[in-house]
């Protein structure tokens, strides 16, 4: 009886080893697009197309299958000379493992939020975290001013300090319904639901067409062969 069980154990171990060596022979990088497809709004073919985009971006400076901050800036602005308070913030939000680089998993999951079909609550959450510069769980007036000033400086738009203060006053009057000088998640949600245009940056219409922009014929034929 014990010998049978031992035999079974060896058999199982043997099978597991076979499985392991199979996965080692798979094409480098994209294993299990189905998992990502299940856990994001993307379909399997969209994940594969996204992977083509990822490969392009991640090989721009160092060809290591990962996107570092410089490669991210290059992809966004087509130049690595442009720094932006916000691009840094976006990168940090993509970088859920907090190791200063983006792997495909982080890339796909973050972009999923920008898909037209992503739940609006995800977009509201992401944008709130984006603006919550100090990550305190609320957006302070001082943070809003900092971001407005940085945006104006970036774009070359000129507004006097008085005008900036007035605009922020008006915004807080409307948004800060609890009158505590900060905008919390609930207040942000209410503001955005009243002004949907505030979330326009949270949707990339092109993500719907990603399979036509980045066809992955090569990968498809590999999958078909197995």
């Amino acid at each position: 009886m014990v010998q049978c069980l031992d035999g079974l154990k060896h058999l199982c171990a043997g099978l597991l080893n076979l499985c392991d060596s199979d996965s080692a022979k798979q094409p480098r990088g994209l294993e299990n697009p189905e998992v990502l497809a299940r856990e994001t709004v993307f379909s399997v073919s969209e994940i594969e197309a996204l992977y083509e985009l990822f490969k392009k971006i991640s090989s721009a400076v160092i060809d290591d299958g990962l996107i570092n901050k410089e490669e991210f800036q290059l992809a966004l602005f087509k130049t690595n000379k442009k720094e932006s308070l916000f691009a840094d913030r976006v990168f940090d939000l993509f970088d859920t493992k907090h190791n200063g680089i983006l792997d495909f998993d982080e890339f796909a999951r973050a972009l999923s939020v920008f898909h037209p079909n992503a739940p609006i609550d995800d977009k509201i959450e992401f944008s709130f975290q984006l603006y919550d510069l100090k990550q305190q769980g609320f957006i302070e007036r001082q943070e809003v001013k900092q971001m407005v000033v940085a945006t104006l400086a970036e774009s070359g738009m000129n507004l006097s300090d008085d005008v900036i203060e007035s605009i922020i006053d008006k915004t807080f009057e409307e948004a800060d319904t609890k009158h505590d000088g900060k905008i919390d998640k609930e207040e942000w949600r209410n503001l955005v639901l009243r002004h949907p245009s505030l979330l326009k940056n949270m949707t990339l219409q092109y993500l719907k067409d990603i399979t036509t922009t980045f066809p992955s014929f090569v990968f498809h034929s590999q999958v078909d062969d197995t």
Partner: protein
Amino acid sequence: MPELDEDHMMAKDLNAFDLISFSSGFDISGLLTHSEYLNCVERFVSKEKPEKILERVKAMVDKVERVVVRKDEKACEGVKLEGLDGNFVIAVRIYRLMNELVVIEVKRKEKKVGGGQFWRTQLRPLLLELALLHGNASK
């Protein structure tokens, strides 16, 4: 579930978060853009009335060959300029800020080779004329 209808531009004033969303750092569409075309945005503050700005733009385009003006459906106050040679499409939209200030937003999609000439030599100089170049919005 409320519908997310960002394309419907209401004729309201911009608030602080609208301004912040103008930052190119928050616009990650650059990740997906086609390499043959350049997508650019530039914005100007102006004290001119929106109607006057758009009139001046249309008057200028009238004198330029191979460029036409169309209505921009996505904006309350805006026009689309198209190069008939297929080199560029430019959307000029005006948003109200406060008092008499407006923001002129120009979104361009132009061919990397040869698409930028109209912008550089005609439209941009005109808008710079109409723009408020100093922060003092004296009443």
